[in-house]
């Protein structure tokens, strides 16, 4: 979908009025085309059922899908049932104002030119992040409110052509998200099953040893960092892993699910509660094995080394 340009005047008018419907036609068209397209694109790349719902709603309201897309965005931003000012808009403007690293009263030099980001560009940049959250919250609401109809597939693909094609190559339906058998919703409450527990630990160790060679170095790093209590957004971890936060979180998530699903398949005939305990034990052993693959230098950078020789000041 083509990039839609907006003007600063559009954003200011929208900020000053409660909703885009109250704005001048030019503003309304420009912002809806921009924001609605962003929402649609995110939904198309994701879940056909939810996109279908949006298209149905648009048809029902006799309006364009982009209008429905914008409505999702404004609904997300709305903070109170009354018509008080939407402070989220002030947050957007304040956040976007930080994109030009210049003080308001500074005199501009030629060297500053590259540091200037036009206001409308900064606003669109900030809005792109808000769009992601708005889309997710909309999907969460639909998943909560819409009953699963009898026999209806939730992930029947839509036919999307040309510009309408999914921007991500594949359509991922919500139902494609692995279900929550990896919640590990079981805990050991037996104080005296020493023999059974030892047997479980032995099995878990064997499984961990079998799984460990399949772990990438980065996965080892994520496991060990998580076990040490680090957040996946920790700047030290991101630097050591050389990736963004979304990659670390998703990487750990993918690893845990892979291990859990593999064991769940392997022990599909067993009591699910016992399988969950095996999953948990196996992951704990995997941490120990993964730790052996992390170099002392990386551990030092993450602050994971025990007290020892350290001649550097920091």
């Amino acid at each position, binding site marked *: 979908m083509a990039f839609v340009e907006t*003007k600063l005047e559009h954003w200011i008018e929208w900020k000053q009025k409660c909703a885009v419907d109250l704005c001048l036609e030019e503003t309304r068209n420009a912002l809806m085309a921009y924001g609605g397209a962003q929402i649609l694109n995110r939904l198309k790349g994701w879940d056909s059922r939810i996109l279908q719902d949006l298209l149905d709603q648009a048809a029902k309201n006799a309006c364009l899908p982009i209008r429905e897309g914008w409505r999702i965005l404004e609904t997300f931003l709305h903070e109170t049932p009354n018509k008080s000012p939407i402070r989220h808009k002030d947050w957007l403007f304040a956040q976007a104002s930080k994109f030009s690293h210049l003080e308001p009263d500074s005199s501009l030099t030629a060297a500053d030119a590259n540091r200037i980001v036009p*206001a409308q*560009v900064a606003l669109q940049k900030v809005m792109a992040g808000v769009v992601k959250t708005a889309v*997710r919250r909309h999907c969460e609401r639909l998943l909560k409110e819409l009953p699963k109809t009898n026999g209806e597939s939730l992930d029947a693909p839509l036919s999307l052509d040309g510009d309408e094609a999914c921007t991500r190559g594949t359509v991922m339906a919500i139902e494609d998200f*692995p279900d*929550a058998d990896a*919640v590990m919703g079981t805990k050991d409450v037996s104080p005296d099953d020493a023999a059974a527990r030892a047997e479980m630990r032995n099995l878990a160790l064997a499984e961990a040893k079998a799984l460990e060679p399949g772990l990438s170095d980065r996965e080892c790093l994520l496991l060990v960092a998580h076990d040490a209590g680090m957040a996946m957004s920790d700047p030290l971890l991101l630097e050591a892993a050389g990736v963004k936060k979304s990659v670390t979180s998703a990487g750990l998530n993918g690893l845990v699910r892979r291990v859990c699903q593999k064991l769940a398949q392997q022990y599909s005939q067993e009591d699910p509660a*016992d399988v969950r305990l095996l999953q948990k034990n196996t992951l704990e052993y995997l941490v120990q094995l993964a730790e052996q693959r992390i170099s002392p230098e990386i551990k030092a950078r993450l602050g994971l080394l025990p007290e020892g020789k350290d001649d550097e000041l920091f």
Partner: protein
Amino acid sequence: MSKLPHIRSQSLSPEETARVQRWQRAWRMHLDLQGQAEEPSSADPASAQTGCPAGEPAFRLQEWVAPYDQDSVAVGDIRLLSPEIIDERAVYVAVLAEAEWGMWLVAPYGNFSEPCAPGELETGRKEAAFQVLCLWNLHSVPVELLHRSWKVDSLTEQELQEAKAVFQNVAAGRPLPEPLRARVGSPIFSQFDDRVVYQREEAALMAPLARAAQRRMEEVQLAWILDIPIPAHNPRPTGPEISRIRDNMARKLTEELTLAAAAAGGQPYSHVALFKGSLQELEDWLAAGGALNRLKVFTASAIVEPQPDQAKPSKCFAQWDLGALSPAPAEGDLFAVFDRKAKRFIGQGRVAQGGQVGSLIEGAWELFNRPAFRCQDLLLLLLRCGP
């Protein structure tokens, strides 16, 4: 035949499992969206530098931002924190109670519509921003932090009571009233649960609140120790000010302190550096991304004798002989004590006896009493506000 040993265990109920599953779907959606590339647009910095549409620079947007609601912080407020405090996403907080010394208890609203753990309460509100209140992530914050926020709504008395009940449950194990049980998240049984990952990220997101509280409590402690009035709140630096601090602070960081008798005779010693600025400026610098490892540190000798404070065993007493430093520190100069290994602030002290001695005025004994404690691990950062 079963291959797995059977161990007596407790599992989530079907309702609890369903709740976790809904939360997990939201989490997976979140991860998926975060991983998606940005839309191709002229918002890319590269295109911003090469032929982007001309117009007002972004910082002019500040002119259209409503002033913060500074005058009327009150229990029951729902406030949107300035992006100067947290900029990753818009964070709304509920103001739950007023504490002493200008501190207020606040809890953030969550980023999902489903509560993730027993410390999260489904509020019943329809607005996306206020559907889940995260009592496990409660913080006490100085009022000046709330002065950089906009008031957007108020809690009802019932909402306040419910929040208090959930906090008492997670913090002190007090039984949760029956009607609330179905509105909180399910328990977490494993550290590998996605919800632990999420909680750590949320806790890290709120780090600026914890830092502001720590700074305020240090001011209060110092005022109490020195028997002076608790200082008035200072306005915090704004975004451009932080940039200025970040850019300029390196130049005024340190000047060399020469050593007359460096670590002679195997005496224990600590490192000393001079930071030409106030504690406030140091913290601003650290908050703006300044790293201690960029400080030029000068070898200097000092004797440290940490021992428990007789009156308060959890606290400790320590002194450094600063007489050998040149130029000599001034009476009353403050210094911050950092553990170089742990890379953290562990106490603060004040120069006394005409600049000859540095005395710890606040520090936890357990930090000094580690088995492998070495004086060399300590860095004393002398703070000098004057010329």
